[in-house]
């Protein structure tokens, strides 16, 4: 905004396009020392960010290529991870499946609850309850993930038998919820734990978004005779939609990359299981964490190759979220 107004103030008339460096600089509004320093700082930060991303991608791609070129199995589809044998055979199919499945479970459980909590805090809760509840949720976000992992392994896992038995009895026929009475260190348990871990971030961001719904949008609905829930449905949720998607993406990012909590709870193997209740499977981050210390140089390259795939998946997910937000941009509250 500032730059554009200054542009019109200081740029020469449109008939004479800026030619000298001096004029170009004037057109950008960076003539005063303060402006110039700020321009340099902000541009430098932007470039630095891109440079870091490029460096990470380059490092991952280079080390990954060393490993993948020697892989005797199909890197994308193989159900094994043997980097210590000759020829080495390893593939990321199980890891990709496990990462996606556990994150999807976490999102399915966490997003509706987080949105409901955020709505409660902004539109239903008595004023004096709002800050204590928000404070507790912030605390939840501050718990280190290893603590979640320990809690998951020591408290959550032993408690899952009841739920698993119930699911097996009533939904076991679907195959997804069948259970062979093994220890419940399975994808579903991981998903539940991840859901608890990503709940605070989604709740907090959604709460901020819902709080910013302009009063006039809510009054528009109220004046038509909308009940409180109808105000939420007509004004609050549509306005907050892109914000909730962004919040979910932050949560998803954490779920996709979560390492210690998954490694502590999951009982991994290298197979894809139809049932979410039986132990087994694995995720990228968990696999890297549990194998990295004992891996050979080549084994590490192979793990880095799997990290590259996680990197790409995260980029794709973020891109998809941005596309969803952009698709209905003209309907967003931003231009109102």
């Amino acid at each position, binding site marked *: 905004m500032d730059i554009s107004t200054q542009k019109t103030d200081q740029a020469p008339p449109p008939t004479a396009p800026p030619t000298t460096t001096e004029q170009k600089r004037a057109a950008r509004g960076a003539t005063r020392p303060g402006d110039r320093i700020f321009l340099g700082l902000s541009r430098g930060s932007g470039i630095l960010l891109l440079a870091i991303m490029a460096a990470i991608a380059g490092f991952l791609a280079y080390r990954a290529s060393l490993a993948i070129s020697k892989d005797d199995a199909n890197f994308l589809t193989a159900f094994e991870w043997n980097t210590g044998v000759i020829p080495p055979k390893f593939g990321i199919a199980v890891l990709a499946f496990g990462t996606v499945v556990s994150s999807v479970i976490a999102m399915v459980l966490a997003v509706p609850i987080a949105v409901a909590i955020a709505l409660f805090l902004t539109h239903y809760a008595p004023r004096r309850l709002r800050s204590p509840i928000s404070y507790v949720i912030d605390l939840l976000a501050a718990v280190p993930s290893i603590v979640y992992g320990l809690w998951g392994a020591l408290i959550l896992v032993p408690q899952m038998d009841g739920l698993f038995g119930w699911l097996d009895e009533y939904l076991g026929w679907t195959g997804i919820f069948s259970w062979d009475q093994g220890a419940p260190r399975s994808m579903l348990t991981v998903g539940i734990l991840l859901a608890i871990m990503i709940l605070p971030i989604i709740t907090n961001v959604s709460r901020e978004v819902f709080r910013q719904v302009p009063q*006039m949008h809510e*009054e*528009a609905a*109220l*004046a*038509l005779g909308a009940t409180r829930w109808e105000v939420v449905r007509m004004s609050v949720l*549509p306005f907050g939609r892109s914000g909730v998607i962004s919040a979910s993406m932050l949560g998803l990012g954490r779920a996709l990359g979560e390492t210690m909590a998954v490694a502590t709870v999951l009982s991994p193997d290298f197979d894809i299981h139809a049932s979410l209740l039986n132990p087994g499977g694995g995720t990228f981050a968990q696999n890297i964490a549990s194998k990295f210390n004992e891996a050979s140089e080549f084994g590490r390259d192979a793990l880095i190759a799997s990290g590259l795939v996680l990197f790409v998946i995260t980029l794709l997910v973020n891109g998809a979220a941005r596309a969803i937000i952009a698709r209905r941009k003209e*309907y967003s509250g931003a231009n*109102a």
Partner: protein
Amino acid sequence: MAKRIDVSGLTAYYGSHKAIEDISMTVEPRSVTAFIGPSGCGKSTFLRTLNRMHEVTSGGRVEGKVLLDDEDLYGHGIDPVSVRREVGMVFQRPNPFPTMSIFDNVAAGLRLNGKYKKNELQDVVEKSLKGANLWNEVKDRLNKPGSGLSGGQQQRLCIARAIAVEPNVLLMDEPCSALDPISTLAIEDLIGELKERFTIVIVTHNMQQAARVSDRTAFFNLSAVGQPGRLIEIDDTERIFSNPSVQATEDYISGRFG
């Protein structure tokens, strides 16, 4: 459809602050009543008590009676939500639902009230947009977002949305203060047409507007900042602007205020 409003002894509070005190007036059906007065005199607050929007603000409460024909809006067991379905409102800044199309904006109130068949909805939307003098401008882009319209068009869209549910009363809170003179004229013409069907109450800071559109004018004032606003007088608009019975009204209208 249009109903009479009968207010007696109405006092409204924001928490412990008394915003307006002891207001009584009658608004005839199928007429336009304008509220004028200095900022902070409580005319908007009073307007918002007429559809129970006042109590949406935290700490907002009301004492006194507002009768719509014979029904007390603040009576025991009256649901504010159903009051607002009978008493529509148009706001100072146009506020179409930004995520909804033009069609959905107009249909929003109907959809709240129950199920309608698609062609019934289409009929009502067309009728309401015609009633708001907007149909010819938007009939080819009903599925485009309402927020893409100009300010004046958006305000007429909000009027169409308000009249689509056939309210008994239409409240307008400075509906033209964010609009240019041409859009203002369009809204004023529209108010003249709408009063055939609705009881209309309009708050305005524009004295010429009050003189142009209203049948009756009510002047509000407050004795000092922090004091509650009061109704000074209500009379036929012609009389208020030519020969008001209270000196304060004449001072305000002729610009000798304060």
